[in-house]
C-alpha cells in the first residue's frame, strides 16, 4: 500500500500549538507511507487539489488527513479521494484540532500526540478495504411532530412541494403556543387572525394527514424508511361523527375542569373544544374531570349529541405510518415559576404568567378580552411586569435567555394601555434584548408613547397589602430601592424544553442538551439538521425562539426534507456488520442484542448461522462486541483494525 499523509495547519488553529511540519516528517517514516506533507488548509480548494495531485503523482492508494473532527470534513475528503480515482473508504482522518491543538498549549506534547494519532490512522488505513454503498428506495412521506407554528409551516411547505405529510399533535387541536397569544410583536397584529388561515390550510390540504390528540409511540427504521407507530389517544368522541357543533360543551354539567388552553385562567367543562378556531374542530373528553368517569354516571353529552359520537369505552388506538423523513417541532413549555418564593410561590392569585395574561387580553379568552384580575374580577390600574423569571438565572438551573420575553412584555404593556387607557405599567428588567427587525423601535415606543415605566433591577419580594400587591425591588440605574403598589403582577416566565422532549429524542435517536433542547447538527452550519440522518428540527424544540424564527426554521426543515426525498434512491452506508460464516457457531447472541433487528438466523446445511440484513444494519457494533469469537465484524472498524490502532499507540 502507498499511503499519503497530509497534516493540516488550519491556519493557526492547529499550527499554533502543533509543529505540523515535524508531524509530517515523523509520519514519513511510518509503515507504508509513501508521501507526507503539511498543508495550510486541507479542506480548501487548493488543499483538496494538492491531495488529488499527490495521489496521481505518487501513485497513492490510501490517504490520511490529520486536521479537524471527521464530523466536519470527512465527507469533503472522501469526495476528494474519490475524484482522484480511489475508493472513498481508502481514507482515514486523524483529529488533531479538537483532540490536540485546541485542548493544550504544550507544543512538544501536542506534536507528539498528533504524531501518535497519525500513526494510529495509518495503522488502521493499512487494513482498510474498498467498500461500495448499496442503493435503496425511499418513502416519499414526511412525519411532522408538533402542530405549533413551526410544525404547521414545515407541514405546509413540504406538502406544497408534493410530499405526503403526516402531522402529529398531542393536544386535541393544532396551533401550539401561538394560538394562545392575543397579538404578536412588533406589529401588534392579531395572532389567531394570521395563524388561523394556516391552520385551515393544514386541515384542507389534500397531502396532509392530521393526527391531533396523538403522540409518537415508537420509531424504527432509518433515513428514507422510518416506521412510526402513532398512539391516538382516546378522546371518547368519535371524530368521524363529531361535527363540532359544541352542544355537548354547553350542556356538560362538570364545569370545574382545568382549562389547559386558557392556562387555567378560568374553569371549563369536561368535554371541550379547546377554542373557537380549533383545527380539527372536534370535541374531546378530559377523563379526570368527566363525571361519567369520576362518579360512574352522567352521560349528558351522549344524550345531547345529535350524531351519537360519544363513546365512553373508547381505547387508545394505534396507526403505523411509513415515512422517509421526520421533522421534530415539539416547541417549549413554561418553566415552573412557583420555585420563586419571593414572588409568592404561586400563593397570590393576582401574580400570573404572561401566557395567562395573553388569555386575559384575548377577545376569545375567558374574560372576553376584558382585563380582570383573578382574585376579585376588578380591572387593574397599576400593572407590574417582571422579566427574566426563570431566564438568565443559574440559581434555578436556567442560565439561558429565553429570547422572546423582552418583546412580548413590551407588547403586553402596550396592550394594557390600549385596554385600560388610565392604567400605568411598570416593567422590571435586567437588560432589554431587542435585536430583531423593528424590535428596538418597538421597545422605545412602549416607553415613549405608552408611558410604561421601565425600571432596571430585580424584584426582591412581593407581598399583599390592603387589596394590592406591594412589589419591592431595586432600581440599579438610580441606585435606590423602589416599591410599587400593584393591582396585578405579570411574570415573564421563561421557556424550557417541552415536557417529554428527552423521551422523544430517545425514540428518534437524536441528542439533546442538558436542558432537554434537541441538538442541531452544527450550531451554525446545520441549524435544522440533527446527527441522525433523516431527522430535522424546527422551532423552539432546538432552542427558544420567537415566531418569525420558528416559521423560518419550519420552512428550512421542510427544504431539507424536500431535498432528501427528491431522490428516488438513497445510498446505504457500507460500514455495517458482516458475518464470517465459517467462524459463526450459530449461538444467536447477536440476534438478541441487535437494537435494529438487523440480524436473522439462517440455515446453513442444517446448522444455524447469523446473517446481517444489509439495508437495516446501522453499523452500531453492538453485535460485534457481543460475538465471543469475533465472527461478526464491522466493516471499516474490524477487530483487527482497532487492534492495529491500539498496537500503534501502545508499542512495546
Amino acid at each position, binding site marked *: 500500500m502507498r499511503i499519503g499523509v497530509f497534516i493540516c495547519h488550519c491556519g493557526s488553529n492547529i499550527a499554533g500549538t502543533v509543529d505540523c511540519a515535524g508531524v509530517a516528517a515523523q509520519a514519513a517514516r511510518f509503515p507504508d507511507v509513501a508521501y507526507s506533507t503539511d498543508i495550510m488548509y486541507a479542506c480548501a480548494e487548493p488543499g483538496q487539489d494538492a491531495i488529488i495531485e499527490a495521489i496521481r503523482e505518487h501513485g497513492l492508494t490510501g490517504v490520511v488527513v490529520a486536521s479537524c473532527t471527521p464530523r466536519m470534513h470527512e465527507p469533503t475528503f472522501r469526495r476528494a479521494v474519490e475524484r482522484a480515482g480511489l475508493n472513498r473508504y481508502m481514507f482515514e482522518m486523524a483529529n488533531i484540532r479538537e483532540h490536540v491543538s485546541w485542548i493544550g498549549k504544550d507544543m512538544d506534547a501536542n506534536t507528539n500526540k498528533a504524531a501518535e494519532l497519525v500513526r494510529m490512522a495509518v495503522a488502521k488505513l493499512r487494513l482498510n478495504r474498498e467498500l461500495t454503498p448499496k442503493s435503496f428506495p425511499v418513502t416519499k412521506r414526511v412525519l411532522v411532530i408538533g402542530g405549533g407554528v413551526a410544525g404547521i409551516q414545515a407541514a405546509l411547505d413540504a406538502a406544497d412541494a408534493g410530499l405526503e405529510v403526516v402531522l402529529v399533535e398531542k393536544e386535541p387541536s393544532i396551533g401550539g403556543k401561538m394560538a394562545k397569544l392575543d397579538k404578536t410583536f412588533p406589529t401588534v397584529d392579531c395572532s389567531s387572525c394570521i395563524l388561523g388561515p394556516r391552520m385551515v390550510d393544514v386541515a384542507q390540504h389534500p397531502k396532509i394527514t392530521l393526527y391531533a390528540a396523538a403522540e409518537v409511540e415508537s420509531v424504527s427504521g432509518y433515513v428514507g424508511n422510518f416506521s412510526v407507530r402513532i398512539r391516538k389517544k382516546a378522546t371518547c368522541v368519535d371524530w368521524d361523527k363529531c361535527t363540532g357543533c359544541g352542544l355537548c360543551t354547553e350542556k356538560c354539567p362538570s364545569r370545574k375542569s382545568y382549562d389547559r388552553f386558557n392556562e387555567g385562567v378560568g374553569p371549563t367543562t369536561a368535554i371541550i373544544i379547546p377554542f373557537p378556531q380549533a383545527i380539527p374542530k372536534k370535541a374531546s373528553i378530559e377523563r379526570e374531570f368527566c363525571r361519567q368517569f369520576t362518579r360512574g354516571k352522567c352521560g349528558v353529552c351522549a344524550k345531547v349529541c345529535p350524531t351519537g359520537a360519544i363513546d365512553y369505552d373508547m381505547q387508545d388506538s394505534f396507526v403505523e405510518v411509513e415515512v422517509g423523513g421526520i421533522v421534530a417541532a415539539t416547541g417549549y413549555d413554561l418553566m415552573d415559576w412557583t420555585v420563586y418564593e419571593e414572588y409568592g410561590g404561586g400563593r397570590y392569585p393576582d401574580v400570573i404568567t404572561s401566557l395567562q395574561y395573553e388569555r386575559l387580553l384575548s377577545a376569545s379568552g375567558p374574560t372576553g378580552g376584558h382585563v380582570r384580575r383573578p382574585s376579585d374580577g376588578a380591572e387593574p390600574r397599576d400593572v407590574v411586569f417582571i422579566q427574566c423569571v426563570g431566564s438568565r438565572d443559574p440559581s434555578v438551573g436556567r442560565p439561558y435567555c429565553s429570547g422572546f420575553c423582552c418583546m412580548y412584555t413590551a407588547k403586553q404593556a402596550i396592550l394594557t394601555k390600549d385596554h385600560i387607557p388610565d392604567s400605568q405599567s411598570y416593567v422590571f428588567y435586567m437588560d432589554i434584548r431587542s435585536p430583531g427587525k423593528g424590535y428596538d423601535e418597538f421597545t422605545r415606543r412602549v416607553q415613549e408613547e405608552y408611558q410604561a415605566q421601565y425600571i432596571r433591577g430585580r424584584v426582591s419580594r412581593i407581598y399583599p397589602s390592603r387589596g394590592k400587591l406591594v412589589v419591592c425591588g431595586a432600581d440599579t440605574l438610580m441606585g435606590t430601592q423602589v416599591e410599587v403598589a400593584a393591582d396585578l403582577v405579570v411574570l415573564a416566565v421563561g421557556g424550557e424544553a417541552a415536557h417529554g422532549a*428527552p423521551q422523544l429524542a430517545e425514540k428518534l435517536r437524536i441528542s439533546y442538551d442538558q436542558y432537554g433542547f434537541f441538538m442541531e447538527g452544527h450550531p451554525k452550519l446545520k441549524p435544522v439538521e440533527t446527527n441522525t440522518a433523516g431527522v430535522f428540527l424546527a422551532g423552539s424544540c432546538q432552542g427558544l425562539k420567537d415566531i418569525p424564527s420558528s416559521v423560518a426554521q419550519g420552512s428550512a426543515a421542510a427544504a431539507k426534507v424536500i431535498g432528501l426525498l427528491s431522490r428516488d434512491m438513497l445510498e446505504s452506508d457500507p460500514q455495517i456488520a458482516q458475518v464470517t460464516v465459517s467462524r459463526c*457457531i450459530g*449461538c444467536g*447472541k447477536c440476534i*438478541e*442484542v441487535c*437494537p435494529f433487528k438487523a440480524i436473522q438466523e439462517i440455515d446453513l446445511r442444517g446448522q444455524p448461522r447469523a446473517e446481517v440484513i444489509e439495508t437495516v444494519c446501522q453499523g452500531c457494533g453492538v453485535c460485534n462486541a*457481543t460475538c*465471543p469469537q469475533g465472527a461478526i465484524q464491522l466493516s471499516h472498524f474490524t477487530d483487527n483494525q482497532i487492534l492495529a490502532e491500539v498496537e500503534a499507540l501502545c508499542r512495546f
Partner: protein
Amino acid sequence: MAIEQELQAAVKAALPELDCIIGWGPGPDALRDAPLFLRDAADADVLRAGFFSVNNPALFLPEYKGRKIGVLVKGCDARSVGQLLLEGLVRREDLFVIGFPCSGVIDAGKAAALIADRCEAGELRSVREQGDSIVLEGPDGAFSLAKKDVRADKCERCLFPNAMDADLFVGEKRAPFAELDEYADLAAFEQAPLEERMAFWEKEMSRCIRCYACRDACPLCVCRDQCVAVARDPHWLSQADGIRDKLFFQIIHASHLAGRCTGCGECERACPMGIPVLLLKRALSRRVETLFAYRAGIDMQGRPPLLTFSLEEPRIKERDW
C-alpha cells in the same frame, strides 16, 4: 451408598428412551471420578455420584444438541445447564435432567496435600464416603479425613446444592452451607493495593503454559474451535510467549463469561499450574449482580443482561427522569 444405587436404578429405567446418559464413573485415581457416557443399561453399575464427582457434565451438552440426552447434575452443574438453556445452546426437550443432593465435592489437591506423608493419591486402593468424613484405604491401612478439610472452596459458598429444574430428583434436598455469597475471597484480595494485585497476576500468569485447559473445561465456552485465542482473523492474541497475551486471554475469557459464569470452578480445577483464574470471573459476577441484579443460570424467565439490548437499564441511572 443408597443414593448412588437409587441413581443407578433411575438411569437403568430412563436409558431406553435416551441416546446417552452422562454421569460419573471410576477415574484416574481413587480421589477423582471421571465423566461417564452410558449408552447401555447393563453398564449402569459403574455409575458413581457423590463427593468425588467433580467434573461438570454440562460441558458436553452443546455437542449433543439435537439428541435426547440424560444428564446427572449437582447443584452447580444444574446452573450451567440452566444458563445453556437460557442462551438456547441446548434445548430443554432434548434433556432428561437427574438431580441429587450434593454435599460438596473434593478438592483433590487439598486431599493430596493432607495424605502426602502417607502415600500418593495413585497408591490409594479405594475411598468411600462415611457421613461427614471420607475413609481412604491406603497401602498401610485405612484412615479417614473430615470432608470439610478437603472440600472445594466453591462448595462452602454454594447457595444451590440441590439441582433446580430437574426432571427427576433422587434423595432428600439439603440446606446450603451458606446463606449468601458475600464474595469474601474477592474482598480479601482487594485489600491489597492495585500495584500489588497487578504484580500478583503477573506472577501467576508467568506460570501459564497456554494449554487452554481452563477454556476447554468451561461449560459455557461454546465457541470451541472458533475461539479468538487461536484465530488469525481477528487476530486478538499473538503467539508471543509473554505475560501480556496470557493475561489478555484470561481477561477475554472472563469478559465473555460476564453474566454467564455460574461459578462452577471447572476452569480453576482444570488448570495444571494452579492459577486462581476463577477469581477474575467472580469479580465480574459480583459486578453483574450489583449492576443488573442477575445471577447466571437460576431464573429461567430472566434474560442474561449482556445478551440483550435495552435503552434503559432499571438499575443504571444515566438521567434524572
